[in-house]
């Protein structure tokens, strides 16, 4: 018998490689890289979120207003009529002409990326185009990080949070068991967690129940409801400070053993908070979360140290989720659902079962057919086919690729198409045998004749698959991936591998038993 040739050795290596690296996926063992099952197969939640970045712009303007107030108060510059207009700009008027130049210099220094327009003593401040774009982008980036942080803290297995396209966020959470959990996750993601400490407009608050929103706006105020009682408060629109100055939030318990949230402010926040409480003794300050008032205690004394508490008759799980949300930061821009797919675990399992049955049946049919039609040549082709399957699984495992339902269909289809190369080759070999060529020559020429056809056909299919991968989303990507891997693997197993096996077995091939070897009756060497 001829010694092993490089083709067979290569094929054996590929086979060993395929088996070793597909074992972790097949047995679903703990160790080793394995194929991740797509959400359609293991169940879970898939969401595509849109980002309302215009809200981020608006809140940026709002915080600019807060800064202006803070700077001017600090520098004893007297001003009036500070207001925010349509979420686009802030305007105010200085009262002292001598302050104009100093104010301008201060604003320029403190407010980055703004255009400051002065008209006598009236000022208006807007953001530059680049600053608006930058704010939008950073809002999306921040939203991705915030949502990721929240899901991680929630303690879920391997959630995926990624920016998709220009302004979308893809969230995938596998393994959600109940509808309640899903709902809780949705709420956790959606929670803006926008914390604001706001002063109650004590002068006008008595009239809050009869006041229109427009009137409140004309005073530079907003009307917000209490989270539990629905009682209305008239609050200064520009907050004393907001959640961006928060460093930590924890669940605690008050005297009556009710859950509360304790949070700590950073240095600047603590100073602003201390200053404000110092001059506002006897007045009320509202703790506002996502535009709802949680508590509005009367300030009894100056509060230093930057420790604040929210009480609001929480459920313990609610307080827990809220603390997570506050800790991981506010969403600068709210998100909304553009696409949501949730698959129950039982459906995923059913899908795997159904497509595995289809895969196994299709595979068996093809294997039997090949043996019946081609004899030994069919068996060789089947060895290549099995090698091919292992290789696909191994390569997918190594890439940590995700196997989706269409991906499984891709594998099923690959099985059907992978034998194609061997069909082409076998037909070529038969043709040459019929012409009366020797077995060795028929095999060699059969391979070389078949090669260009297989190559060109596979490359064109790969082109289509690549486009599919580049343009597809989720499931389609999975399909394109398995098909591409399948095509490439089949080039190795069906062309190189089987060729090697023929060369290796050549001395054994009896030219009088072509029926057994190639499934043909007549012909053969003359």
């Amino acid at each position, binding site marked *: 018998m001829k010694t092993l040739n490089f083709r067979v050795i290569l094929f054996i290596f590929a086979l060993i490689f395929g088996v070793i690296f597909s074992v972790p996926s097949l047995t679903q063992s703990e160790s080793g890289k394995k194929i991740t099952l797509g959400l359609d197969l293991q169940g879970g939640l898939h969401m595509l979120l849109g980002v309302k970045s215009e809200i981020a712009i608006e809140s940026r303007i709002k915080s600019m207003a807060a800064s202006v107030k803070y700077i001017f108060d600090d520098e004893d510059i007297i001003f009036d009529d500070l207001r925010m207009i349509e979420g686009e700009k802030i305007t105010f008027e200085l009262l002292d002409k001598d302050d104009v130049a100093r104010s301008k210099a201060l604003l320029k220094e403190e407010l980055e990326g703004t255009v400051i327009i002065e008209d006598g003593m009236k000022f208006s401040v807007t953001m530059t185009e680049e600053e608006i774009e930058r704010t939008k982008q950073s809002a999306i980036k921040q939203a991705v990080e915030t949502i990721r942080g929240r899901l991680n803290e929630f303690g879920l297995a391997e959630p995926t949070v990624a920016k998709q396209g220009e302004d979308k966020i893809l969230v995938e959470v596998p393994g959600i068991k109940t509808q309640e959990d899903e709902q809780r996750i949705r709420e956790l993601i959606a929670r803006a967690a926008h914390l604001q400490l706001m002063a109650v407009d004590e002068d006008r608050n008595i009239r809050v129940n009869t006041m229109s929103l427009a009137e409140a706006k004309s005073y530079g105020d907003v009307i917000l409801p209490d989270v539990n009682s629905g009682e209305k408060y008239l609050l200064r629109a520009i907050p004393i400070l907001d959640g961006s100055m928060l460093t930590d939030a924890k669940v605690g318990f008050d005297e009556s053993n009710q859950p509360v949230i304790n949070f700590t402010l950073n240095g600047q926040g603590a100073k602003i908070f201390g200053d404000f409480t110092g001059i506002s003794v006897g007045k009320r300050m509202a703790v506002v979360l996502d535009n709802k008032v949680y508590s509005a205690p009367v300030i009894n004394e100056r509060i230093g140290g930057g420790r604040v508490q929210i009480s609001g008759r929480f459920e313990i799980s609610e307080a827990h989720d809220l603390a997570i949300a506050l800790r991981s930061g506010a969403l600068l821009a709210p998100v909304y659902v553009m696409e949501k797919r949730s698959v129950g675990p039982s459906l995923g399992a059913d*899908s795997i079962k159904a497509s595995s049955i289809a895969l196994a049946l299709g595979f068996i049919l093809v294997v039997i057919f090949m043996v019946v039609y081609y004899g030994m040549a069919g068996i060789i082709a089947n060895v290549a086919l099995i090698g091919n399957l292992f290789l696909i699984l191994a390569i997918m495992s190594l890439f940590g690729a995700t196997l989706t339902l269409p991906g499984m269909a891709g594998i099923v289809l690959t099985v059907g198409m992978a034998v194609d190369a061997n069909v082409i080759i076998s037909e070529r070999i038969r043709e040459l045998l019929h012409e009366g060529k020797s077995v060795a020559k028929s095999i060699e020429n059969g391979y070389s004749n078949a090669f260009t056809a297989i190559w060109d056909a596979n490359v064109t299919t790969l082109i289509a698959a690549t486009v599919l991968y580049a*343009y597809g989303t989720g499931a389609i990507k999975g399909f394109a991936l398995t098909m591409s891997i399948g095509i490439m693997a089949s080039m190795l197993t069906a062309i190189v591998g089987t060729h090697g096996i023929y060369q290796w077995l050549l001395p054994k091939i009896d030219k009088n038993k072509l029926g057994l070897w190639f499934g043909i009756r007549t012909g053969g060497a003359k």
Partner: protein
Amino acid sequence: MEIFKYKKPLSLMNKSKRFGLLSITLLILSLGLIIGKGFNYGIDFAGGTLIQVQYKGTAPIEKVREAIDSDASYEGATVTFFGSEDEVVIRTKTSSKALGVDVGDQMRALLQGTGDFEVRRVDMVGAKVGSELREKGLMAMVLAIIGILIYVSFRFEWRFAVASVMALMHDVTIAMGMIVLFNVEVNLDILAALLTILGYSLNDTIIVFDRIREGIRTIKDPDLGAIIDESVTRTLSRTTLTSLTTFFVVLTLYLFGGEIINGFSFTLLVGVIVGTYSSIFVASPILMWLGFSVAGFREKEAEKLKREKEKEKMRAMYENGTL
């Protein structure tokens, strides 16, 4: 075993007018269906919500309908059995944007009291995403075709490229016609199936074309019709066999793959049949109608060969230091 044993070329080209007529009729019918009736876009492309509910035992479909009709915001929602008697699918055009308000949650509340059920799947796609997906899908098709045109022109000749793309469009159009005819819901997986047909049918066509290219070089007869007849006949057994194995597999997928993958495998079944037909009877005649010249191709090939030989000679001379 041998089914298609080569004896003498089939005279396919003589009958090409008949097949052409058949193809054109099918194409017109398909286009008529696509334009006249239009696709039944699923929620992936049209936007909306789909909820799959499994009941313990037979699903009380009438009760489900009543429950859903009781809420005016779900007007036009449809309820159908899904695969088996115990599973139903509810489709509605409504899609919620707010994370807090979920159509799935609302539906679940509405269905309370219709029986013991489990919500197995909730898909919700906003209208904006739907139109984006549709555009992207179309873009993918166009780009794939351009890529194929370039590659085949480079490896064969431009007429081969045009003929293969025309055969592709033939297959995809007929498959789309069948999708409309059988009212298959068009979702992302159907798009994937159509793109697979693109790849599959191309595969088939290229293998026939490869044989024609080879025939032009080896067959003495200068008549393109005779070369095509011989090449197609010689590849006939491969074309049929591969189509048969693929057909087996897709058929098992269709029969046993479950309801979710039904539309996908149906589309593939059609694609395999049409793709096989077109690579045997349609692609090559187009080549002939495009006025492909055997003599011209041979001349070009000869020139290419000559240039390569010259290059080799130069290289040899250079290596020998005689240049």
